[in-house]
């Protein structure tokens, strides 16, 4: 096959696939952020820390209690989600009527405290988490060696993202949620407990972050810093996709993963900045984001 821009096609396909894998983390994390922002109007800066807590909780379950990866996928989102619910009940709910900035500062502060506590307890080098036996090894795709676990991550995150989208956009529960976003007093007048719905939504968003953390644990080191490194990129993804847009965050997440992957081939030095360059351009041309609408 001829080279494409001087890059052998095998390498190019490989990088596209890798971009898709990274994109699935971006998509799942930005999805959680988008849901929380859509309903609560809170810019949840604790998201990265909650992702990290997810990975650590999985590690603790495995090493202290001997609970396997598969059970962790169920237990961890519930545990960390409950932590989220506590935060919402005790702190966040006092801020809904104030400017976005207050929620951002509060959640940012919580993130710093949580990360500091984990760093103090576990150090910064990170801890190893074994890939579950059923997903070890890999498949030779011809153009690259595809670790089975990475394939699993893409599949799971696609399922999770699309299910979430379906529930919010196409079901009755989702209709309540969207209505409560538009006009909370009206929905409350119909006998729906809006504050409880808000709390559970936050818990669900946090649970999504924790779930991504479990998925990430076997790939990256489980370290206190893992969320902080990722969250800035994820925020850029949300801004590009349009704050609060569900489909926007999914599509942008996967898309930007791919663009980042390609940058790593053509100009690796820029791979850490390319997403922010795109963000700047999108903000200039379409301030509400690609899929967002002006509110």
């Amino acid at each position: 096959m001829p080279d494409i821009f001087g890059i052998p096609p095998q390498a190019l396909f490989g990088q596209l696939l890798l971009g898709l894998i990274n994109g699935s983390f971006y998509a799942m994390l930005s999805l959680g952020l988008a849901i929380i922002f859509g309903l609560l109007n809170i810019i949840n800066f604790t998201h990265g820390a909650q992702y990290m807590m997810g990975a650590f909780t999985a590690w603790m379950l495995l090493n202290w209690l001997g609970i396997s990866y598969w059970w962790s996928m169920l237990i961890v989102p519930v545990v960390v989600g409950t932590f989220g619910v506590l935060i919402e009940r005790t702190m966040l709910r006092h801020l809904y009527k104030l400017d976005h900035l207050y929620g951002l500062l509060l959640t940012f502060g919580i993130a710093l405290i949580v990360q500091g506590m984990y760093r103090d307890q576990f150090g910064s080098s990170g801890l190893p988490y074994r890939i579950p036996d059923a997903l070890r090894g890999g498949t030779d795709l011809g153009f690259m060696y595809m670790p089975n676990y990475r394939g699993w991550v893409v599949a799971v995150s696609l399922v999770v993202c699309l299910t979430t989208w379906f529930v919010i956009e196409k079901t009755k529960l989702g209709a309540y949620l969207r209505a409560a976003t538009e006009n909370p007093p009206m929905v409350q007048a119909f006998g729906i407990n809006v504050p409880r719905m808000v709390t559970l939504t936050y818990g669900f968003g946090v649970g999504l972050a924790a779930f991504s953390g479990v998925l990430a644990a076997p790939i990256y080191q489980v370290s206190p810093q893992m969320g902080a490194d990722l969250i800035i990129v994820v925020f850029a993804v949300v801004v590009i996709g349009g704050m609060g847009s569900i489909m926007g965050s999914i599509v942008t997440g996967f898309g930007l993963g791919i663009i980042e992957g390609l940058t790593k081939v053509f100009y690796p030095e820029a791979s850490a900045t390319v997403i922010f360059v795109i963000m700047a351009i999108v903000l200039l041309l379409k301030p509400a984001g690609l899929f967002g609408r002006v509110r």
Partner: protein
Amino acid sequence: MKKLKNMLLGAAALTALALPAAAQTNVKIGILTDMSSLYTDLAGAGSVLAARMAVEDFGAAAKGIKVDFVSADHQNKADVGSNVGRQWFDVDKVDVIVDVPNSGVALAINEIAKDKNKVFLVSGAASSGLTGAACSPNTVHWTYDTWALANGTGSAIVKTGGDSWFFLTADYAFGHQLEADTAAVVNKLGGKVLGAVRHPLNANDFSSFLLQAQSSRAKIVGLANAGGDTVNSIKQAAEFGIVRRGQNLAGLLVFLTDVHALGLETAQGLIMTEAFYWDQNDASRAFAKRFSAANKGIHPTMVHAGVYASVLHYLKAVEAGKSATDGKAVVERMKAMPTDDPLFGKGVVRKDGRKIHDMYLFEVKKPSESKAPWDYYKLRATIPAAEAFRPIADGKCPIAG
């Protein structure tokens, strides 16, 4: 009469109190390190602890030297580090800055210490430039450098058949220097460098870079990075079957804490060059026992050992000169006195500021060979002090001539 006697006694007592105070030398040690990011475990709070242990073991108080400590996080940013350094020297009257893991920050502090005529004891930073073109009469580079790592690991690997290389390089001063030094060794021994890819510091995902390394078909993938970056590259290389498909990894800078983070299952068989390992002799084991008891069980890395030994030698020089104010004079005394400490044994500080001691080539044990927690390395070879570091003439250090 009795009154007079009392007065005399009082005066005598006062003089007795005042005398040592007049002879007392004040030293303020600033430990500038990574307290929050990827190098925290290999340096960080452990470096502060090591410096305190050195002061304690030296018996500074009994020798009339009063030592104060400050420490700060440089956040791996040269501008943050420079600001702290300037403030310490100008406002806080710090006499010596220690450690500084991150060559970018270390090169900045190197200049500031020279301008202000203070002392800089490098343990954590690796760039061989610190005793090469950027060398300074105020700096001592203690533990290791990129040339020593390249020479130790690079030549061991080329000699056993690993003659084509591809580098995964951290994109800042340290990575570039380590890549350049290793490439020089590889070329000198008749090997070939097929290419390199530069990744941002603190990158999370290395799979793209590893894939590029794979398609280069080089026999050896040289990891010119450190700390969390190395750990993640090794881990993901295992995932993508780099080793299983016939390529080998060379961790050019791997610390004990990295091996601990990886676990022996993933790290086994890795070869690396280090200046110190805790399980070498009775003195190093005793040090490790005290150190780990005060450091949440984390055993000392060579960076911690270097902080300890360099502070110890520095205090000896201050004691001999009875002053810490003239940084250049203290460093000259450090170079004039032979070094002797429990962790590195006997050695010297060369004219260009390079501390000379043996280096060691270690191999990470298999899980079955490890008998106790932190029992990770076996010795492959000792690189004698005379061969371990760059010959002084090759460094082009202006003050060494």
